[in-house]
Each structure stands twice: as structure tokens, then as C-alpha cells.
């Protein structure tokens, strides 16, 4: 790998809960990258894992080929649910970037009172120990402000695009939303895009 390639080659790990729409978000970001002229490979797992379980996916930019990440390989972790961010943390390389929702979706064991959900302070503290930069964003809340809980995913994507860790910015994501999302979802997602861009302040 040449030195100048290193900067372009990025591995992004997505994690969330089945039904949240993380795979749709992965595909949207993949299309954004492809439109930006980057080499793109995305990886997903369908099937049994989607029934309320953890859903992981990856997006590789700049020439990586392997659509599956191992621990310590991800440059960026996008967590659509804070407990899953914590669970997915081993995938992050030391000094990588974390963008995560701070709105919990308790697993059944927690709902049933058999286990307790980790403290948000503990999640943030453990994340900071590994990550070079990290942001926890009330994605569900902002998504609802924009029009639906699902558009909270766009809040997160917009925030990571605005942060500068990706080789493209919010404008590229905006263009992809306009090109690829169905008309009825445009308004809430474009609103979510603004909220995500502004949340970093």
C-alpha cells in the first residue's frame, strides 16, 4: 500500500438493531461514495440476524476488498444504538472515530428485568478510551424532529460526513438522498441531514 493510498483507504463498521434500517443507511452511504468516484465495497448479513438481533455491516472505501471486518480493523464505527456501539468497539482500530446514537433500544433481557442496560456514562467513557474522536448524538430524538425515528439514521450519516473523517462531505450525501431515496422520504431525510450537520456545532 502506498502512503497516499493509506489516506483514502477507509474501513467503516456499522452496527445497530434489526429493524432500525442500518442496512438501508449502509447502502445510502455506499451510493454516496460511489457517486463521489471512490472504490466501494459494502458487506451485509441478512436472515436470522435481522429478527431483533444485532445487525452489522461494513463499508470499504478506496480499494479494500474484504466485505467482513475483524477486531481492530475499522477506521470509523457508526453505532445506531449505544449498547451496540459498546459491543462493536473491539472492531475499531486504536485512535479511530466513533459516531453513535445515544438513544438506547433495550434488548429483551433488559425489558424483562433480567439484565441491566449499561450506563451511558460508562459507554462514553469506554469509547473515549479507544477512539481518537467520538460523538454521541440523540439520533432518534432528532430523527423524530425531522419527521420519523428512521430518519435518525440520516442524522448520524450527516454528522459523520460533516466531521471530515470521510473523503466526501454532507453535499455528497445530500445529492445521494435526492437521487436514491423515494420521494416521500426526501423531506424528512433532508431535514435530518441539516440536523446532523449542525449537531457537531
Amino acid at each position, binding site marked *: 500500500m502506498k502512503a497516499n493510498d493509506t489516506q483514502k483507504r477507509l474501513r467503516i463498521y456499522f452496527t445497530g438493531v434489526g429493524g432500525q434500517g442500518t442496512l438501508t443507511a449502509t447502502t445510502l452511504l455506499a451510493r454516496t461514495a460511489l457517486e463521489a468516484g471512490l472504490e466501494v465495497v459494502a458487506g451485509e448479513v441478512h436472515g436470522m440476524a435481522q429478527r431483533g438481533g444485532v445487525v452489522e455491516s461494513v463499508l470499504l472505501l478506496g480499494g479494500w476488498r474484504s466485505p467482513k471486518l475483524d477486531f481492530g480493523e475499522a477506521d470509523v464505527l457508526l453505532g445506531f444504538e449505544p449498547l451496540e456501539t459498546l459491543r462493536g468497539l473491539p472492531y475499531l482500530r486504536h485512535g479511530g472515530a466513533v459516531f453513535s446514537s445515544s438513544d438506547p433500544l433495550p434488548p*429483551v433481557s433488559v425489558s424483562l428485568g433480567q439484565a441491566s442496560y*449499561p450506563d451511558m456514562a460508562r459507554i462514553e467513557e469506554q469509547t473515549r478510551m479507544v477512539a481518537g474522536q467520538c460523538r454521541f448524538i440523540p439520533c432518534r430524538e432528532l430523527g423524530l424532529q425531522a419527521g420519523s425515528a428512521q430518519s435518525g439514521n440520516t442524522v448520524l450519516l450527516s454528522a459523520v460526513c460533516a466531521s471530515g473523517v470521510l473523503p466526501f462531505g454532507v453535499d455528497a450525501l445530500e445529492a445521494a438522498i435526492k437521487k436514491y431515496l423515494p420521494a416521500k422520504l426526501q423531506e424528512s431525510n433532508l431535514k435530518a441531514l441539516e440536523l446532523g450537520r449542525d449537531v457537531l456545532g
Partner: protein
Amino acid sequence: MSNDPLLRGARGERHLLLGNEAIVRGALEAGVHMVSCYPGTPSSEVADTFLRLGGEGRYRLEYSINEKVALEVAAGGALGGAMSLVSMKHVGLNVAADPLFTSAYIGLPGGLVVLSADDPGCHSSQNEQDNRYYARFASLPCFEPVSAQEAKEMTREAFRLARELQQPVMLRTTTRVSHMRGPVDFDDLPAPQPKLEFKRDFGRFVPVPAVALRRHAVLDANMEKARQIAESSRFNTEKEPVGGQTRLGVIASGVARNYLADALASGGWEERVRVLELGMTWPLPADLISAFLQKCDGVLVLEEGADLLEQSVRALAQKRGLAVRIEGKDATLTGRGEYSTTLALRRLAAWLDCPCPAKPARPVDTNLPGRPPNLCPGCSHRAVYYAARQVFGDDAVYSSDIGCYTLGLLPPLRTADFLVCMGSSISAGSGFARASDKPVVGFIGDSTFFHSGMTGLANAVFNHHNLLLVILDNGTTAMTGHQPNPGMVQQMLGDMSAHMDMEAVVRGLGVTQCARVRAFNLKAVTKALEEMKDKAGVRVIIAEEPCALYARRRLRKAQPQVAQVAQQGAEALRCLERLACPAFYRQGDKLAVDETLCSGCMVCLQIAPTAFKAKKR
């Protein structure tokens, strides 16, 4: 008319496709006429994409009732001159193995491509068998794509070869390839290939023993032709480092090719080894590999799954008298689970005797609450399982089957004690009951019943077995994404296929003790279970209720009401503990219902009538 780029896209266009969608485009570019399948992760999106596209007269698609039937239909189509594709998951090929082997003997003029989607790592499967064995076992040329682009290209090439040699060809993917997305450059989309006229030939197509022996020789000759094609296939590529001095080589096949490329890039080792990547992996391109071995003193073989390539390379070196050190599987790279870039890095570092750039993994926090997959809120299986547990408790042994309902194994429902394969709830349940004193309750879904439950049920009647079978009929193939099956209502099947009445089938197979209930009618389900509990012989309860996701997304059923907690206390908490609906959540010692998750099945109201009430949404 579909606007989908898979049907509309012209030569030169580039689209981001799922691996399985790229296979569809490849089949269309090849000119496919017939597609059959039985759905199964990770293969399902292939047929589902053909279904979505409609085809506009290009091809005929069918969801067969099982993989054996699907392969026979496709083989029959190819005998009739059609270019045919059959798709299934890896364990499906076990079901279809019988017609597979004989198809290769008689040869299929129209051309048949068999897609086997393997699942290393058992993401959605009961084993991680390596179906490259089948390519060798049954003598099928085999292609293994590792990118979306290759998935399209190799599919097209597989069809070309299948028709040229009149031999079935295997396209073998793994989960990561089926479910990867990447850019795909399109070629022309020609009209479907001409169908070939069937010419009667008793000496070929009817494999009585004398014919079969002759055809075995023809098969061997055809595989020799396929080997020559593999020797110069553009999918088998050698990369020589700049300078070309090194005497170390790596041979990689399958998804390990990706891990190798990324590991060599990460380690900065691209100039230290020569690489042979195999994409057309069977028949083995023996001359190509020999030539590669001759340039090496040491060779490392990288392949996920079994050590098939490694053993073949070892045998080849021995046969051709090549003095080269061959390494492959070891404690780092085993025959189990999936590989990764980091694993390949570690193995390469040890082999090249240089420091490994991959840092040791940080400890994983194992104390986090788990999030296993679960039956959905409003899943009718949960209602039936609850009733069964109330009636039988731990007295019965629960014989489970393959589908969403396998998730009944989780507490508090715990209604799965053993499982072998599709359809085994009935036949393995029959055998268990014969060996044991315990009553056996089997659970099977509608699609699985039509897949391979019917034969087991006929056998149970024929052999006087003693089993209570509950058919969890949710009217669709839920786990794999709501594909059609004979239990689906006619309105949803449309003109494509015909509905079959479950009870008529059950009674037609000779079952006389059969009850039909609504799964959400807890009283009726409980009563049916209690009545059947005291009887002997083969008993069947058909518990009907559409899959909750299917009802909402496809049947567009309204959900006019939600459950609400009317009274906190022991009754409410008992319901929480025994039903464990994911729409419930606990706040301190209080219970609440998440209205966004509740589907309004009202099973909780029937269990705890004073604790819950219905509310208009």
C-alpha cells in the same frame, strides 16, 4: 414494465449491486430461460430479484417446494432445451444431491447452472458444510466469485460453459459474497438464447446401468475439456511481483482471495510473494498450478472451509515430483468459521517470518446484555408456544424444525429440544417417540411442511407413529423474506402458482385426527392441545395466523388497536415472564407496552385479562 436497471441497464452502465443481484444480471446477460429455487439464506435474493423484475417474458421463475424438486425442474428444463438456473443454500444441495449426480451423467443440452450459497460461520444455518465437495463429488465445473462484478461475469461464463459442454456447472458463493455490494459494469442484455430442440436418445438420457457406465466415461471426458478451459480461464490469474525474484507463492481461492489481497496491502508484502488466485476452481487447472509451483520453494494455500485445494496441490506436487514446501491449514487458519484480513495477516507474518502489523485484539466486554434474534412482537408462534408450554410444560419433548419458529428454543418458551434438518420435526420426532416414553410434540412451519414434512407425515401414518404435530401456518416463508409457498393465500400467489389447502393435504395423507385453529385464539389452541394430548397416534393441529411482518407489509392489514397495561401487579408481571413479548418493557417493578412495537395480537389480554386492556390506536 420494470424500470429496474437490472432489466433496463445497457452496456457500459455501472450500478451498485448486491452479489446476488449481480448473479441475476449475469444470468440475464447469458440469456437464461428458466429459474427455480427453494429460498434459503444467503441465496434467497437471487430468486426474489427475478420475482421483483417480473421478467417481461424473458424467463419463467418458480419457487419449487424443495431443492430436489427445484433441481429436477431445472434439469428437466435444460433437457427440454432451456438455459436453466437453480438456486439454493448449501444444505439445500444435500436435499437435491440425488438429481445432481445423475444430471451430470446424462448431461443437459440446454445448460444448467446450480447456485450453491454456502454459509461459513453459520450466520443462518445449522452447519457450515463446504459445497466445493459437491463440485468434485458429482463432477461439476465450479466458479467461485469474490466480488459483485465477478458474480455477474462468472454467472455468464458458467452458462456459456454449461451449454458448450452440456454439463451442469456449479456457481458457488459464500454469505459474504452473496451479501456484498459493489459496483458492476454492465454488458449487453441480449434476447434469451435460442432453446434447443430435444432429440430422443435412449442411450444417453435414460441411465439404465449399461448407459450410466458409458455416460460416466463421457462425463470424465467432458471434465477433461473443462480442465483445459480452466487452465487458461481469465478467472485464474497469476500476479508476479515487480522484479519477480521471490521463490514464495500463495495460492488462494474463494473469499480468501479478498483477505489475501487486503493482508498483503496492509503488511506491505505485495513484492514479497507471487500470487495465484483461482476463480474457476474445478476441475483443477493442474498445469497452471504446476507451473506456479515450479517457480516456488514454498507455497501457502489460503482457502476458507475445508482443505480441498491444499490437499489437491499437495497431491499434484507429489505426482509431478515437485520439491516445494506446501503449507495451508494450521492452528491460525482452521477449517472452521470465516477467515478475515487479520487472520490472513497473522498467518502470512508467521510464514514470511516477519513482525505482524495486526495488534492483538483488545479484551471484549462479555458482561453486556445479549441481543439474540427473537420472535417478533405479534408473532403467532409465540402464542402457540405459550399454550403448548402451559399444557405440556417439561413433560413433553419438543421436536423443532427450520424457520423463525426455531427461535422458540429461547426461554421462557423453550419449545425446541432437538432439530436435525428441514422436515425432521416429524420423522425424527416419530423416531424419538418410538424410543422414549415421553410424549413428543413437533412444530413445523407451512413452507417447511410442504418442503419435506409431507413425506415424514405419510411415513408417520404408514408406520403407526405416535406424535402430536403442530403446523405453525403463518401463510408465508417468513424467515427468508416472505417467499411464496403452497400455503400462501391465492390472492397473494396471483397467477404464478396455486394455493394448496393444508388441512386437505394432511387428511389426504391419511391423518384422521386433525384440528384447525386460529393461533391468536388462545382458548381454542389450548383446548385443541388438551384434547390431542390424551389421544395416541398421529395427531395434527394446524394453527393459522399470518406472520405479523407479512400481515403488515404485504397483506396491508390494519392494526386498529394496541395493548395497554390496565393494572400493575403480579398478573401483569407473570405474563411478562411467561410470554416475553418484545413489546413489553419494565420500568422498575412496573410493566408497560411499547405502542410502536405492539401489533395488537391481544394474546396478553387473553392470558391476563385484568392486567391488560385494548386501546384504539
